């Protein structure tokens, strides 16, 4: 049972795009209950790695193991049903659908309602209390009835987090949750992730080093599709290769 504490493992994971190797022999081990940050310069392969982990891309080589199940080559929906929720680097919401309905849809997708054909209002109301609760948790309770397209950017990101939480995931994958946010939103989002990580495992792609520093237990630095360094934030930060490859450009 040596592996039992790892909720996500990749073995020699590689991905080629028409001969271009975007991910090269990446072996990760994400320990259950931790926040694991994935950092690296633009084009390092972070989003590609997320897509491999969640089934949106099929690996060229290697394996992905989630909670002991080999999910290599499985469809995104199958992996999602194992308790893996993800957010996308580019905000992805239904423009005309309200915040509450987004969360309701996510809530009911996890239930056995698949066979119920007619969507009565009574049925939907079963989820709306929980939906509003989740929206409250991310500070969106007041905006529950607003269509997604009318929300400010920071709130869209918060809504995406509420949707991911509605799936009640064991493993939460966040692709740049604070990208493009103002300072205030960054702080709010950081506090939010710190709160929702309880009882979960979070893997996040993040460029903002202070966010990484305050949240991450482990940091993996990717460069040109390969793992450059891995370890606790303080160690990784002090690593000369990392400073050269990545941090230099941002911190100096």
């Amino acid at each position, binding site marked *: 049972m040596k592996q039992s504490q790892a909720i996500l493992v990749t073995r020699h994971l590689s991905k080629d795009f028409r001969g271009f190797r975007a991910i090269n022999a990446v072996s990760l081990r994400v320990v259950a209950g931790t926040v694991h940050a994935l950092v690296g310069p633009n084009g390092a392969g972070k989003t590609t790695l997320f897509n491999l982990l969640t089934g949106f891309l099929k690996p060229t080589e290697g394996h992905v193991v989630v909670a002991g199940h080999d999910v290599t080559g499985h469809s995104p929906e199958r992996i999602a049903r194992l308790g893996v*929720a993800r957010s996308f680097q580019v905000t992805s*919401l239904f*423009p005309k659908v309200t915040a509450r309905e987004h969360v309701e849809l996510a809530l009911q*997708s996890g239930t056995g309602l698949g066979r119920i*054909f007619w969507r009565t209002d009574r049925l939907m109301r079963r989820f709306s209390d929980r939906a509003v609760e989740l929206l409250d948790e991310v500070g969106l309770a007041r905006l529950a009835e607003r269509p997604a397209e009318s929300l400010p950017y920071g709130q869209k990101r918060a809504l995406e987090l509420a949707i991911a939480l509605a799936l009640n995931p064991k493993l939460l994958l966040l692709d740049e949750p604070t990208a493009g946010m103002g300072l205030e939103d960054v702080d709010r989002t950081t506090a939010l992730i710190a709160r929702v990580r309880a009882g979960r495992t979070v893997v996040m792609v993040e460029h903002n080093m202070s966010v990484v520093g305050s949240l991450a237990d482990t940091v993996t630095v990717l460069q040109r599709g390969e793992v450059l360094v891995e370890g606790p934030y303080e160690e990784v930060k002090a690593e000369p290769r990392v400073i050269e490859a990545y941090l230099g450009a941002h911190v100096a």
Partner: protein
Amino acid sequence: MTSFLQQAFNGLVSGSFYALLALGLAVIFGMLRVVNFAHGAIYTLGAFGAVWLADSAGLGFWWALLLVPVALAIAGTLAERLLIHRLLALDPLYNFLLTFGIALVCQDLLRMRYGSHSQPYEHAPVTGSFDLGLFEFPRYQVFTLGLSVVVCLAVWLLLTRTRIGTIVRAAIERPELTRAFGIDTGRWVTPVFGFGVGLAALAGVLAAPMRAVNSGMGADLIITVFAVVVIGGLGSVFGSVVAGFTIGMLAALGNLYFPVLSQTSVYLLMAVVLLIRPAGLFGKEEHV
């Protein structure tokens, strides 16, 4: 005024064919990202299906209205499973060529069997006209318009009030997000294709009593329908229906006042809409 109302009515009747065909194209495009170039051929097959049922089995209009769309929907489902599905992962060009090829094959098979003359179909379920004094509305045309409005409303209810409809709408709008919810959108691809085919076949059966039934009938119509779909916004189900009826009516009225433009008014409209809203009237542009 008389001719205005008469033309507006005729336009709505044409529009009901545009709407049924555009609706099918829109759900298919939304779900598969395939522009179904066989859609016009399916409409033609629908009309010939009605003719064939009457000639060979003595089954009248109501039987045709029931059996032909179901039969063609099943055939479409098989074609999707066996052919189109295999090409979905490739460049969309492959399915463009495949569906275009299917259309040509269907059209030529019909021409071999029936020649290029129009086939008579004398099985309209209602005949005569509503005579309102100043103008007359043929009963069958009124029936066609009414039925297609009912079908469009039923599809709308299906899409907005049922769980399957919710999944299909979600899959059309944000396929990746929907899958990230753990929803298996792939299951609905084939049924949606069959459904769209069934709608086109239904339009074909409806056309049999009032339009010339010949092997080229779909090819002429479908070009206008593609313009309708583009104007409504590619992949917008709601837009396709609204644009279908609106354009049917505008084109008919255009004929009345600007007869020189009768062949081009729809394309002019398309050009204007695309200049103002490149994604079509109800299409999505920005990514939210």
